């Protein structure tokens, strides 16, 4: 089995290479990765963003991320999956979340990666504050 899950929250910059190293095996023919990146604008808001900050409740966030990884495995496995969310202050262009999925073929790897990011955005106890160039800030929930 390829199954492996590497789950984490970190205040350090995310490195895809480290995630890939956690999931790659000789049984996988595909590795799909995803980075969510701090962007200079927010949907439906014209104010320029100059940074983001994230906070998380590890007590519930980590088990929920593990559950999402297990669901992805149940739906699309065998896969290996690594899923890490950043916390603290991020400059524009920095990654807020990194996901790597390894699978025997590319289809399940793409599907599992998309499933993981979609479910994280709905379910994991992480909160985002946008910091605008005028000094204002706003907490932004996912739609």
């Amino acid at each position: 089995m390829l199954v492996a899950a590497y789950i984490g929250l970190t205040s350090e910059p995310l490195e895809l290479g480290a995630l890939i190293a956690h999931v790659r095996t000789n049984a996988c023919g595909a590795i799909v990765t995803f980075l969510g990146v701090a962007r200079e604008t927010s949907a439906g808001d014209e104010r320029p963003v100059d940074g983001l900050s994230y906070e998380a409740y590890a007590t519930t966030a980590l088990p929920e991320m593990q559950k999402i990884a297990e669901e992805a495995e149940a739906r699309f496995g065998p896969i290996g999956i690594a899923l890490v969310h950043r916390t603290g202050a991020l400059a524009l262009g920095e990654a807020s979340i990194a996901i790597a999925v390894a699978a025997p073929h590319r289809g399940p790897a793409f599907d599992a990666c998309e499933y993981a990011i979609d479910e994280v955005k709905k379910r994991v106890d992480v909160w985002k504050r946008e910091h605008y160039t005028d000094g204002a800030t706003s907490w932004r929930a996912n739609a």
Partner: protein
Amino acid sequence: MDVRVIAFARVRELVGFGERVIDVTAGATPASVWASLETAAGELVGLRASTRFAVNGALVAGDAALADGDELALLPPVGGG
């Protein structure tokens, strides 16, 4: 009895703490703790419907019984990813 209350994001800013041990009466629930916080921070009223409660890491209803030493987390709508 003592309950450790943990608050996040906008809720944290309104209550004025991220973590605080609060002395509550026997029979207290997440909803009653929230109501007491509302008296000090009126803007919380509008956030009640969208805020979830977790006790010791498990989501609970507002009328769940709290016990001495519990950790009650106030969880606004998520924004990660």
